[in-house]
Structures are given as structure tokens and as C-alpha cells.
């Protein structure tokens, strides 16, 4: 380092570079913002996620923890450089694609860079070596197993298939850019000169506040602007459910949770880098808060919202038959109370984006699960006609429900309009955790009766859900839970009630399963106790009670086809019998380590509950013969870009590689609805099928060809081969429309549902998907530690559009379920970073055997059902049931930390 000038020079990916960093500047910042190496990702700025891993003199380090100056004189390698320069890295990238080891891709640079360092030293590593090498990089999507397979060079899971139609396990169509460092996420798209926004947040769970001299402060600090509630041009409220639009963009006078936004500063990057929120002119007057359900429901508790007495946001209710009579009749009745914690989505990409004003229109580029809902919110918050707003989704580094709500979008749009210049924002990990939504903590009491014949006789569920300070998707949770709390079983007499309770906590919202995973913990745990009491095998008990075609659900809905739960459970039989026998053998040897095997099941209705949720797919053929698919379903790593394209290509009858994909830019792509409720494969998939069919019909009609004809897209025109007859549609002869399309289609699908009556009876969903998991684990009874070492997961997907992506969803969902069961607990003020809030690492995730069941659904495209949330529902209860199998102890509070399990074992006399 040249001490005099303070310049730092080093070799970056083979090129000498020289920079002048600030004292304290991280190498990651310098690489991304001074040197344009945005293939280096930042997930936490604290060493906890490893996304920022680079090689310094060949050794993997977190670039977010290295002072930029420390790189002086060294060689620094990033993913893009490795892939460009090293065959080993390119080969690894191909292996990642072949395994589907990159889902959203935000962790991929860190994973691949770490793996390259390993493979340089150990060309054929064993599993332990891979885990040790990658243990410092977190992935929230994949469940790690496919990453291990890729690094070890196992045979690829993907197939080469010229057509790539449904059922073909093809690689992701957008996979390459995730493994070569070119994928652009929310923080990767801003121009270099963009101003930076930083939000000022409440340090208190509940406090009154007064803002001081903001203009003076802005001048003193050299800021371009300070934003507060007064700068919100339209309505200072947003939300997701009509009637529950209650969350301010900036709090006004009172903050209702720790981390709530009260203001934002906007300035040049170096100015904002030096900004310390402690200096911000605001005075706080802390008020009494209520952070738990009992506190919030206690008489005299501070009320969060006028008109919501007792802090009850709303409730959901389903009743079928006569539950009390059935319980009375039952030979055995058991009751249990179960509690779960706040769970953080912990996607590795914190919310980020940029905005600019172009020709009087505001453009917001950000990571999202729901571009059109973002547009809806901006329309009201900005008080601007929607034609003047454009939302362009960037690649999204994981969402899992939380990126359904807006986060950065209003700040970006307001700041861009006010500053008149491009602005950017990337949440810090802590503010992402403090301010965005969570999984609802639940306090659930379940009573279930059964006859001696093993048949369920009455199930009653009462659940309170901590919905935090604002509604978000809380009403959806309250409605979904009663519909699902029976599990996928024949329960004739049923009553379920769920209520959302406001507290001074971050808003609870959507998180894979909308409350159903919590309810499954209660119901599936109690099922095991019931089966044991009745001396019936736990799996057979479930099979005996499994819902079937023609049997009404608890909402009185009768499916004549497509109920696949029994097939899922039966698929687990061989593993259940073998693993139980093995566990008995292992446990007979005695010792402090006990093995357990657990099963649990789940179901999940795909799409909105009894509400319209249409998707539209548009496609066109340009004059040059290029087929373009406008695919608006946000691909947050789950693979919508691939699956929707496969369905469209199948319907049209062309190879999937013929498609050019256009994403969810609201200016050019119609609304495919939100990526939630496991609806994209089902709902948008159907729109894609209809669009493909419509285009096929139009082409065949123009060629006057029969339904079996083959369509071949060529630059010269569309060739239609019908038997021996070959017809060419001359595209040059057709008039292109404003977008340059000579042929175009747009089709909409909305699943048929019917409203629920006051007892929750009706048709909530057009289809359900079904799942059953088996978990094998060891409990170290002296330490209370739990080590799952195998999962078998049976999923009824109706029709496996892409089996590789299905496995990816299942493994990733199981990893999240495992985290929820064993380690994850968000506590405001205490576990607000990825150091204290623990999610599974590569060493925590055992192999998963995925059993795909195809019980076609009448409404699904080619019979396909949704899957995204099903994958997580049975996991936590299967783990709890395995723990109980191993130790006899029924855990009733999640997560089952070593400390809690040991305490329970002790109480049980262990």
C-alpha cells in the first residue's frame, strides 16, 4: 500500500486495480461499488452468510469483514473472474446447473468460490470435506444437498431433452447467469451515481416521537433530502388485504414496533456511509408495550388500532358436523397445547432496489414476489395514476412470502421523485429482520377424539396467532388455518377457530404455508399420541383416516378425483417399516443416543382462499419468427421461469428452447398474480397452457392443419407439418403490432372457488396438494441435541412438470421445516441478525429421498398441483414425532433447542 496517497492496489481477477477506499470500507463495498464486481453478493455484512466470499491469495474469506486496504498487494478472485479464467470453475458451474444447485442464486457466488478453493486442493472431496469447506455459506433455498452433489461431481439430476416439455427434468432455463456471476439482484442494478437511502427506525417497541429540525440536519450532514410522513404524496398507508390497509410508510407520531420506519435520509454514498442514526433529530418517549399474546389480550393492554378491541385483528372459523357430540362419543379424547415462535424468512438477499424518474414516470426496480401488487401499493402511496408508474422486478434472492409485501419500494419511489435523481437502497440484515414480516407465533389448543376402531371422532382447534403491529397477510392466516387444521383427513365433526392478535412486534405475514405449518405441528403431534393410546401403528392410523375422493373436507367440499394423501402415506410404508426396525435394533444396544422415526402429513389449498386470483399469460411471435413468452410469475428461485415455459411449450407443441422469456416488467407483461399460495404452477401454469393452446389453434387454423400437426418455428416463417403436407405461414406478410408481434395471444385463468359461509362451508380452493414426510433422527439424551439424518418425502404433485425442480423445492422446504423445528426463534431486540438467529447450515441437512406421487387434478395444467408450501408443512411435526419416538417426550414448544429438550427429558425422568 502506498501510505502517502492512501491508494490501495491489488490484482482483481487477473487485472491490476487501484482504489482509494475510506478508512473502514469493506472489501466487499470496494469490489461492488468502486470496481463493479457485483457478482460479489452481500447478505449480512457480518460474516454470517458467506455470500460475499472471495479468494484472497487463494483462501476463501468474507469480503465484508476485510478492510479494503488489507487487500493491497494481494490477488483477489471473485466468481465472475474464476468462471472466466478457470476451467474448473466453469465445470463446477455446469455441475451446479445439472443438479439444480442454484435456486435463487444469491448464495451461489459464495458457494462456488468456496468450492473452487476446495477443489483446487482436493479434486475429489468426500462429503465431510465439502461440508467443512462450505459450512460458512448459508443457503435458504436448496437445503444444500444438491450443492453437495454438485461439488462432489455426482451424476446430474437434470436430463437433456430436446423438447423440454412437462415431466422433463430439464435444467433451469435461466440457470446459467446464476452460476457465472451475471445474475442481477435488487442491489445489483443501480447506476453508479445513484443517491443512497437509509431508513431511520424506532429503537422501541412502542414509543411516541417528535422530529426535530430536519432541514437543519440535512444541511449539516450534507444530505440531499430527509423524508418523513409529510413527504408521502398519497396515502401514508399500505397493506395487502382490503379493509386491513393499516401500515404507514413512515410512522406518524407513534411507533408500534421496534424497527418501524420513522424517516429516511437520502444522500451521496459517502455521506450516507458516515450517517449515524443516533445523531438524527428525534426524541423518543417510550410507552408501555405488549409483545406477547397474553399481554396484548390482557384487560387494559395498550390498544394498537382503534376499533380492534382486545387487539383482535380478525378471526377465521370453520365448523362441520357436531364436534362436541363427536368428542362425547369418542372412546379416547386427547388434548394438547402447542406453541411456536416468530420465524424469520432469512432469505440471503436483503430487500434492495433502485428507482429513477424517466419522462415523468417513476420506475422502481426491486426484488419482489408480486410486481403488480407493488404497483397497486405505489399507486395509492404516491397518489399517482398507475400509468405513470413502472415496476421492474429484478432477480429475487429468495422470498418465501415476505417479499409479497412492499418494503423498499415506497422509499425508493418517494425519494426518486423528491431528489429527481436515481436512488438506491439495500436493507442492512438487521433492519431487514426488524422490519419485514415474520411467520406468526401460534398458541394452539387441539382436542381430538377417536373410536376404538381408530377412526377420528371430532377435532377441535383453537389458535391465537401473534400478528404483530400491522395486518399484512394476517387475515389470510386467520382464514387459512381453520380450513386446514384438520390435516388431510376425514374429519366429519370439526370446529376450528383462529384469531390474529396485534402486538408491538414486527408484522407477521406470509411465510410458506400461511399458518398451516403451525397448525400441523399441533394436529400431527396429537395424532401420534392418539395412535399410541389406541395401540395402532402411527402410519396406519393416518392411512385409516386419510381423506379420499368423494369424502367431504371440513369445508364440505367434495373432490371426485385428485385426493392423493393416501398414496403419499402408503408410499412411506417401506421406509417406515425398515427404519423402525433399524431404530429398534440400534436402541436395543442402549446408551445415551436414542434413535427415533417420525411421520407426519399435510395438505394445502393452492391459490387464494375463496377469492379470485387470476393470472394472465401473453405470448407473441415476432416477424423474425422468434417466439416470446411474457412470463409475469415472479421466479424467486423456485423455478417459475422454467415451469411456466415448459407448460406453454407443451401446449403449443414447440421445444422449450424456442422461447425467449420476458419477465414481470409491468409495462410489457400482464399480471400473473403473486408468487404465493403455491399458485403459480397451478394458476399461471393454466394461463400458460391456455395461451399455448390458443396460439397453437391460431397457427393450425391459418395453416388449415389438423390437431396433430407439428409446428416448427423458423426465421422464414412458421412451418406446419400435417402428415405429408407442409405449410409455411409467411410472417413477413403479417402486420406487426406496436410490440412487433405478428401473432399474439393472452389468456387468463382464475381457479373456480366459492365463498365460504359463516361456518366456513363452501369451496375454498379448486385444488389441494398433499404431502407426507418421514424423518429419522438421533437424540443425544444427555445434551438434548437432535441430529436428523434422513428424510423421506412423498409429495402428490398431480403431474410432475419438472421433477428436478420438485426435488429442489422439497429439499429446500425440509431445510426450513427443520430450522423451524429445531433452532429458529426470532426475538425482537435479541436475535436480529444471522449470528444469533440460526438457520440450518450445510452440516445440519441430511439427505432427502423424494417420492413423487402423481394423482392428477382435474383443474391443474396436465393435472399439476402446487407444491411450494406443501414441502414444509409435514417437516416440523415429523421431527417432533421422531423425537417423541426416540425419547417418549412430546415437545410442545418450538423450536426444540437442546436446552428445552434436555429440560423436558429431565422432567420426564430421563
Amino acid at each position, binding site marked *: 500500500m502506498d501510505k502517502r496517497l492512501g491508494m490501495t492496489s491489488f490484482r482483481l481477477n487477473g487485472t491490476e486495480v487501484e482504489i482509494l477506499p475510506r478508512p473502514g470500507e469493506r472489501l466487499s463495498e470496494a469490489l461492488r461499488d468502486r470496481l463493479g464486481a457485483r457478482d460479489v453478493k452481500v447478505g449480512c455484512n457480518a460474516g454470517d452468510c458467506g455470500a460475499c466470499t472471495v479468494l484472497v491469495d487463494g483462501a476463501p474469506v468474507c469480503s465484508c469483514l476485510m478492510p479494503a486496504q488489507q487487500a493491497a498487494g494481494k490477488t483477489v478472485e471473485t466468481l465472475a473472474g474464476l468462471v472466466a479464467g478457470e476451467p474448473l470453475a466453469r465445470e463446477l458451474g455446469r455441475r451446479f446447473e445439472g443438479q439444480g444447485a442454484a435456486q435463487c442464486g444469491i448464495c451461489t457466488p459464495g458457494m462456488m468460490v468456496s468450492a473452487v478453493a476446495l477443489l483446487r486442493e482436493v479434486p475429489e472431496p468426500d462429503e465431510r470435506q465439502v461440508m467443512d469447506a462450505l*459450512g460458512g455459506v448459508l443457503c435458504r433455498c436448496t437445503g444444500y444437498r444438491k450443492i453437495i452433489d454438485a461439488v462432489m461431481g455426482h451424476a446430474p439430476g437434470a436430463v437433456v431433452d430436446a423438447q423440454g416439455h412437462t415431466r422433463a427434468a430439464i435444467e433451469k432455463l435461466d440457470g446459467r447467469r446464476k452460476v457465472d456471476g451475471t445474475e442481477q439482484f435488487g442491489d445489483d442494478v443501480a447506476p453508479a451515481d445513484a443517491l443512497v437511502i437509509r431508513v431511520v427506525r424506532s429503537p422501541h417497541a412502542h414509543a411516541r416521537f417528535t422530529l426535530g429540525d430536519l432541514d437543519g440536519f440535512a444541511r449539516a450532514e450534507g444530505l440531499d433530502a430527509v423524508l418523513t410522513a409529510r413527504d408521502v404524496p398519497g396515502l401514508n398507508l399500505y397493506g395487502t388485504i382490503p379493509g386491513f390497509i393499516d401500515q404507514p410508510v413512515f410512522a406518524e407520531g407513534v411507533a408500534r414496533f421496534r424497527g418501524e420506519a420513522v424517516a429516511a435520509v437520502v444522500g451521496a454514498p459517502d455521506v450516507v456511509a458516515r450517517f449515524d442514526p443516533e445523531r438524527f433529530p428525534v426524541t423518543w418517549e417510550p410507552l408501555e408495550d405488549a409483545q406477547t399474546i397474553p399481554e396484548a389480550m390482557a384487560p387494559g393492554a395498550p390498544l394498537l388500532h382503534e376499533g380492534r378491541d382486545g387487539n383482535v385483528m380478525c378471526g377465521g372459523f370453520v365448523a362441520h358436523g357436531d364436534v362436541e357430540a363427536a368428542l362425547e362419543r369418542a372412546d379416547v379424547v386427547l388434548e394438547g397445547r402447542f406453541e411456536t415462535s416468530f420465524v424469520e424468512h432469512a432469505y440471503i438477499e436483503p430487500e434492495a432496489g433502485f428507482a429513477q424518474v424517466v419522462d415523468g414516470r417513476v420506475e422502481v426496480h426491486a426484488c419482489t414476489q408480486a410486481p403488480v401488487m407493488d404497483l397497486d401499493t405505489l399507486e395509492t402511496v404516491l397518489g399517482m395514476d398507475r400509468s405513470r408508474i413502472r415496476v421492474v422486478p429484478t432477480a429475487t434472492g429468495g422470498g418465501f412470502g415476505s417479499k409479497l409485501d412492499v418494503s423498499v419500494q415506497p422509499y425508493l419511489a418517494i425519494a426518486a421523485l423528491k431528489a429527481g435523481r436515481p436512488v438506491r437502497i439495500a436493507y442492512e440484515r438487521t433492519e431487514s429482520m426488524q422490519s419485514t414480516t415474520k411467520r406468526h407465533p401460534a398458541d394452539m389448543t387441539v382436542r381430538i377424539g377417536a373410536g376404538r376402531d381408530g377412526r377420528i371422532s371430532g377435532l377441535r382447534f383453537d389458535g391465537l396467532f401473534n400478528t404483530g403491529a400491522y395486518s399484512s397477510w394476517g387475515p389470510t392466516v386467520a382464514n387459512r388455518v381453520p380450513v386446514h387444521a384438520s390435516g388431510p383427513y376425514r374429519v366429519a365433526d370439526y370446529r376450528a377457530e383462529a384469531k390474529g392478535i396485534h402486538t408491538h412486534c414486527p408484522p407477521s405475514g406470509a411465510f410458506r404455508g400461511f399458518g398451516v405449518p403451525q397448525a400441523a405441528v399441533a394436529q400431527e403431534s396429537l395424532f401420534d399420541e392418539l395412535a399410541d393410546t389406541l395401540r395402532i401403528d402411527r402410519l396406519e392410523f393416518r392411512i385409516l383416516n386419510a381423506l379420499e375422493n368423494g369424502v367431504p373436507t371440513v369445508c364440505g367440499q367434495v373432490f371426485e378425483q385428485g385426493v392423493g394423501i393416501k398414496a403419499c402415506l402408503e408410499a412411506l410404508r417401506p421406509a417406515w417399516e425398515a427404519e423402525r426396525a433399524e431404530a429398534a435394533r440400534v436402541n436395543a444396544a442402549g446408551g445415551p443416543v436414542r434413535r427415533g422415526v417420525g411421520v407426519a402429513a399435510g395438505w394445502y389449498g393452492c391459490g387464494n382462499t375463496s377469492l379470485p386470483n387470476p393470472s394472465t399469460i401473453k405470448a407473441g411471435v415476432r416477424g423474425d419468427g422468434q417466439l416470446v413468452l411474457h412470463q409475469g410469475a415472479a421466479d424467486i428461485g423456485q423455478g417459475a421461469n422454467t415451469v411456466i415455459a415448459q407448460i406453454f411449450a407443451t401446449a403449443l407443441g414447440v421445444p422449450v428452447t424456442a422461447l425467449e422469456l420476458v419477465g414481470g416488467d409491468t409495462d410489457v407483461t400482464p399480471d400473473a398474480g403473486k408468487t404465493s399460495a403455491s399458485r403459480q404452477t397451478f394458476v399461471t401454469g393454466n394461463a400458460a397452457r391456455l395461451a399455448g393452446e390458443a396460439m397453437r389453434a391460431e397457427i393450425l387454423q391459418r395453416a388449415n392443419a389438423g390437431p396433430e400437426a407439428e409446428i416448427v418455428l423458423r426465421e422464414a416463417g412458421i412451418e406446419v407439418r400435417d402428415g405429408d403436407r407442409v405449410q409455411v405461414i409467411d410472417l413477413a406478410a403479417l402486420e406487426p403490432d406496436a410490440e412487433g408481434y405478428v401473432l399474439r395471444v393472452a389468456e387468463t385463468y382464475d381457479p373456480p372457488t366459492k365463498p365460504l359461509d359463516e361456518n366456513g362451508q363452501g369451496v375454498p380452493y379448486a385444488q389441494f396438494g398433499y404431502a407426507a414426510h418421514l424423518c429419522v433422527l438421533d437424540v443425544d439424551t444427555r445434551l438434548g441435541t437432535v441430529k436428523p439424518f434422513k428424510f423421506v418425502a412423498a409429495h402428490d404433485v398431480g403431474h410432475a412438470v419438472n421433477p428436478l425442480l420438485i426435488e429442489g423445492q422439497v429439499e429446500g422446504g425440509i431445510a426450513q421445516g427443520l430450522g423451524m423445528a429445531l433452532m429458529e426463534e426470532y426475538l425482537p431486540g435479541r436475535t436480529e441478525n444471522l449470528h*444469533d438467529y440460526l438457520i440450518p447450515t450445510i452440516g445440519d441437512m441430511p439427505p432427502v429421498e423424494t417420492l413423487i406421487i402423481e394423482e392428477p387434478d382435474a383443474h391443474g395444467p396436465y393435472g399439476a398441483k402446487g407444491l411450494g408450501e406443501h414441502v414444509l408443512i409435514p417437516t416440523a411435526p415429523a421431527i417432533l414425532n421422531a423425537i417423541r419416538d426416540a425419547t417418549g417426550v412430546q415437545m410442545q414448544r418450538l423450536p426444540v433447542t437442546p436446552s428445552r429438550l434436555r429440560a423436558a427429558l429431565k422432567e420426564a425422568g430421563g
Partner: protein
Amino acid sequence: MEYHAPETLGDALDILSRGGVTVVAGGTDFYPSMRPGGPRGDLLDITRVAGLRGIARQAGGWRIGAATRWSEIARADLPRAFDGLKAAARKVGGLQIQNAGTVAGNLVNASPAADGVPPLLTLGAQVEIAGPGGTRRVALEEFITGVRQVALDPGEMVVAVHMPEPPTDAAGAFCKLGSRAYLVISIAMVAVVLGRDEEGRIDHARVAVGACSPVARRLPALEAAMIGARLEELRIDPAHLAPLSPIDDVRGSGAYRLEAVSELIGRALREAAHG
């Protein structure tokens, strides 16, 4: 505000003597605890200072330079008594952290859960400190005085850690208890160094426990009780754990920690004995 990266100890001490200067080594504790707005004063990067890095055998013992990385320790060729230290090195965060984080950083940061401290206690480590008044050595027990508190005077920095030559047959081990496999702050951890005579009787015993008191502690009563005993006969009674005062926190209850420690001590000793 400036960034200094001197190459000699003399220059480093010079800069340090100006006051208001923060030492940075691997940055793995420095950055996560950095306040918003960035550092307030100058930074002193000590990773380029000659003689601060590496492991060497010296007259009467071993010297580990202050800026030695955990991954260097994990790979070093050291006597078996250091196995606990090497195991701890492999448990500090993940590989990325081990490639950056240093021994002195771990000690000066003085977290109750610092994984380096218990094994260094069992090795009888002394901390070598350089400052305006020359250099001095302090026993590790006296160096860390409390949570995030160390016996460093203004202008002083850590230069090295010194360990006496351990008994030739002694073996070390380290057991860390956490809620997940990697990147986990210890709920509790135990380091031991164990030596036995030909009859299998313990003739050298060092046991230290971390994350169960503000500063990791050795267990002198247990060590004394071990001398002359056989491993199989050993019983850990509550009095042996008297130096510990574990608290309840998000990682576990105090009662749980105490219970786990007894179990971990047994496991660590068996591992040291049987490899």
C-alpha cells in the same frame, strides 16, 4: 481519519501511542460490532507487522504470533496437547472466519464464548504485550478481566501468546456445544489436556470451560481431584464446577449449561484419552 498498515512493531506502537486508534486484525469481530456511520478514529491494521504471524517452537515452549489465523493453527504441526486448540480453531465460525480471524483478536475481543480461550487456558498460555514501556507477559487468566474487558493499557497491543512445553505424553481435546453444525456461538465448550502415567493414572490435568462464566475458567478442584485417579473412576461433583456461573440466554438456560458441562468434560477427557 486514517488507515495505517505499518510493517514494523515500532511503527505500530508509534501510531498506537497517538491515541484514539483502533487495532484491526482479521476484522471478524471489528466489523460486526462497528457502529453505523463507520469508525470514529484511525485504524491500525496489524496484519503486515513483521513477526506477528506464525507458530514457532522456542526455548521452553511455543509462541503463536498475535496475528496468526485460526486456519494456520488448525493446520500446524503441534504436540498432541495442542489438539484441543486445533479442534477449537476448526470450530471458530466457518472456514472464511478461520482464514481471517486471529488468535489475539479472539482474546482481546474477550467474548465469554470465545472458543480460543479454554484451550489456551489448558495450555498455560501467557499473553505477550508490547507498549510504550516495552514488553510484558501476563497469564491469560489475568489478561481477560471481564466481558469484553482485557488488561491492555492505552498504547499497548498483543504481540504473541506463549505456552510452556506440555508434558510429552499429554493429549488435548475440545468439545463445543451449539445448536447447529457450523457458524455457531458456543452454548458451552470444554477444553482439556490430559496426561497419564504407565499405570493409566492421571498425572497431568487441565480442564477449562467457556460460555459458562463472564470469562472462561479453569476448574482447579476438578484438576486436583483427577491427579492420581483413573479416568473410569472419575466423578464430577457440583463443587468441581463452583467457578462457573452460567446465565440464561437465548442459547440455553444456566441450569442446562451446567449439566451439559459435566457431560462435555467426560466426553472431552475420553477423547483426549482415546483419540
